[in-house]
């Protein structure tokens, strides 16, 4: 809560030396400044706003367009006029009751050149804070003042009764009125600040989205990583399966060896032909085993031949030559290999660029190199591929000088495999015949032993086939993994960056969500609360007005910032044409008081001539409501406005003073103040009193003079 304690004006137009103390009594929050027209009411309001808000609060919004010095200043005495306004105010923490008292002094000077012209000096401002140790200056005065009393609230808390009508005036377009109302609502609710914050977060978010797009193949990277993880998982499954097959194979092999030994022993224990059969079988099986090994070796050599780069050259010579030419050009232009990242890395590590510039941490030069490193690093992968291809092309050309035809070698290799296969088939048939002879001997023991051996062999073959198939799959998976592995580091770096950017975007989205929801709440529900409160205040003010009270049923502030008034049958009334002057003023005050009350922001309401054109009953209602709802209320009232509300002023006014313009003698004042100049004079007379200074002539056209 902000409370103004006192103000002192020096040479501020009519206010040559005026001190005003404001009421801070919570039970009597009202300060009455009784002042007739042309006695300095508006000047006091302007002086206060200048002191607190600066030159932009002056009429015309700038210092040079508004004279500060008294208009009748005697130039012969001094051609330079120093103007100064001091305001003492306090920021009160309503919860703790802790009060910090500030003093602000704003000053300027004007040099009078002749009767009509003057030069404007600079405006100075000083802010002091009261502490237990004394008074100390406050740095960053503008910022502190703005935080205590935001300039956007000037027109809400410092009200000129006539200007305030602008919220509902007919002279403006609907849109202008709406903007004015909206601006007041937004200022007090802090919506502008939230909108600006949303705007900046939105810009940041767009940048982040741009970065994510630049990282580009985000989903592609994720797909590739997903594939890598799947392959890793498959590899583990195949390794487990391999282990299981090998374990089964070992067990089966042991059983097979036992069965074989049993059969061999049975044959050796038999007749001579049994023994011969055993040795024949042993030899044939050994030959078959050799033939099988031979086939495997030949297949291996054959595969190597197929993958031989020279073979590629023979199959597609034109394409290989074209590609080699392009790659050679890239190498000669030093596009490949990519040596730049290494150079930059070395520079960053050493802290010095190759040109000798120091690359200290946080320096602009280092930032440039780091960005360049980042960019060149992104080119690592494609350039590495190109380098590998170039090396392959060179190997092909080196090997192509060999006279041997690769296709000829392949043909010869394949023929050799076929021969081995044929030999293998013959040996398999031979072993099969020998085993058939054992079974055909008609000896139960041998037949059973051979059958057991055959079963174990069948199982062994099945497991070998499984192992081979598994091994093939495993090799394929490892090959694919190896291919992805090469990109893994680069991928992980990109993914980490992408994930980081996505987290940032998530943060931006959530922050925007909070700001938007807060704004929407304040805009919507709070505006409805203001509308209800405005209606309550307005109706309580005008209910005593027999004319308006009978016609007006409801006042509404819409979410589009229109102030609307409704009559009987919910018929819409135009505030500017269907309401009388008193109701329009009451409606304006009701809007401002409602806005202040709902916002919870508590600052002095300073109102210049609030009761003009109102009937006695409405004036009473306005004073009663304002005095009971404002934390501090300062009213500048003319004598005519005071008529009929004296009792209320007795009840709520903690301070009352009267302003008198010395220039009003002899036309309006009874006694000559003898100041010899135009100025506002202050006396301690309240709304019921008159002293020798402020006593006015009967019939001086001031209404309500006692």
């Amino acid at each position: 809560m902000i409370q103004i304690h006192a103000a002192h004006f020096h040479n501020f137009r009519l206010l040559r030396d005026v001190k005003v103390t404001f009421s801070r009594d919570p039970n009597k929050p009202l300060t009455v400044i009784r002042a007739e027209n042309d006695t300095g009411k508006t000047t006091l309001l302007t002086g206060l706003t200048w002191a607190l808000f600066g030159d932009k609060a002056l009429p015309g919004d700038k210092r040079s367009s508004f004279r500060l010095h008294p208009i009748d200043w005697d130039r012969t005495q001094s051609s330079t006029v120093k103007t100064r306004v001091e305001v003492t105010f306090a920021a009160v923490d309503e919860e703790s009751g802790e009060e910090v008292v500030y003093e602000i002094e704003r000053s300027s000077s004007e040099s009078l050149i002749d009767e009509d012209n003057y030069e404007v000096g600079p405006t100075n401002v000083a802010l002091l804070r009261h502490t237990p140790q004394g008074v100390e200056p406050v740095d960053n005065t503008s910022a502190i003042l703005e935080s205590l009393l935001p300039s956007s609230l000037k027109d809400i808390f410092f009200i000129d009764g006539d200007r305030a009508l602008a919220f509902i005036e007919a002279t403006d377009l609907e849109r202008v009125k709406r903007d004015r109302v909206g601006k007041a609502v937004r200022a007090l609710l802090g919506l502008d600040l939230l909108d600006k914050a949303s705007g900046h977060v939105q810009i940041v978010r767009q940048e982040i989205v741009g970065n994510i797009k630049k990282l580009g193949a985000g989903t592609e990277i994720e797909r590739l990583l997903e594939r890598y993880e799947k392959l890793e998982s498959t590899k583990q499954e195949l390794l487990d399966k391999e282990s299981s097959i090998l374990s089964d194979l070992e067990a089966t092999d042991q059983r097979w060896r036992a069965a074989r030994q049993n059969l061999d022993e049975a044959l050796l224990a038999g007749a001579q032909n049994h023994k011969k059969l055993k040795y024949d079988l042993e030899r044939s099986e050994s030959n078959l085993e050799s033939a099988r090994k031979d086939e495997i070796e030949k297949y291996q050599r054959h595969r190597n031949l197929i993958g031989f780069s020279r073979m590629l050259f023979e199959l597609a010579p034109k394409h290989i030559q074209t590609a080699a030419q392009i790659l050679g050009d890239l190498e000669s232009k030093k596009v490949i290999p990519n040596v730049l990242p290494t150079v930059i890395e070395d520079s960053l590590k050493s802290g010095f660029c190759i040109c000798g510039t120091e690359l200290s941490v946080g320096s602009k030069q280092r930032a440039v190199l780091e960005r360049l490193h980042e960019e060149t690093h992104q080119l690592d992968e494609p350039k590495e591929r190109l380098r590998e291809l170039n090396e392959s092309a060179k190997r092909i050309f080196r090997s192509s000088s060999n006279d041997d035809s690769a296709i000829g070698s392949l043909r010869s290799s394949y023929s050799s495999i076929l021969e081995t296969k044929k030999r293998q088939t013959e040996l398999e048939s031979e072993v099969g015949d020998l085993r058939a002879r054992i079974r055909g001997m008609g000896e139960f023991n041998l037949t059973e032993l051979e059958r057991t051996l055959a079963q174990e062999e069948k199982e062994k073959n099945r497991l070998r086939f499984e192992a081979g198939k598994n091994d093939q799959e495993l090799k394929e998976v490892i090959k694919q993994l190896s291919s992805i592995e090469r990109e893994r580091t680069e991928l992980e770096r990109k993914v980490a960056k992408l994930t980081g950017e996505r987290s940032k975007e998530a943060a931006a989205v959530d922050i925007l969500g909070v700001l938007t929801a807060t704004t929407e709440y304040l805009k919507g529900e709070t505006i409805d609360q203001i509308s209800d409160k405005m209606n309550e205040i307005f109706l309580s003010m005008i209910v005593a007005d027999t004319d308006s009270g009978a016609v007006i049923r409801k006042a509404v502030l819409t979410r589009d910032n229109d102030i609307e008034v409704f009559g009987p049958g919910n018929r819409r009334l135009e505030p500017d044409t269907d309401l009388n002057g008193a109701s329009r003023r009451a409606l304006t005050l009701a809007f401002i008081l409602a806005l202040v009350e709902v916002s919870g922001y508590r600052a002095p309401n300073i109102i210049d001539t609030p009761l003009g054109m109102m009937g006695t009953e409405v004036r009473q209602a306005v004073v009663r409501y304002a005095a009971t709802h404002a934390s501090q209320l300062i009213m500048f009232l003319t004598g005519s406005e005071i008529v009929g509300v004296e009792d209320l002023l007795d009840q709520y006014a903690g301070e009352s003073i009267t302003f008198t313009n010395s220039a009003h003698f002899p036309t309006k004042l009874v006694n000559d103040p003898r100041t010899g100049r135009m100025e506002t004079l202050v006396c301690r007379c309240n709304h019921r009193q008159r002293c020798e200074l402020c006593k006015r002539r009967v019939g001086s056209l001031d209404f309500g003079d006692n």
Partner: protein
Amino acid sequence: MAVDQRKLITVMKQSVSDIDLRYPGYHKDLFDFVAQIVFLEREHEQRATQIKNKVGDKVSALGQVIYKKSKDL
């Protein structure tokens, strides 16, 4: 700030509680960062600052917290 800070804080806290929880304690972190951004905007209103960069830093900082704490989950 024009609006009564307690009122703004109350509404902001309610708005924060409507946001999905990204990790335990996220709402407190989110509120702190939003409040800091609003403070920066207020500071910027009073004297020109590099507001866009400052807001960007805050968004990045919260993003890093989300990234780190989500990884730890």
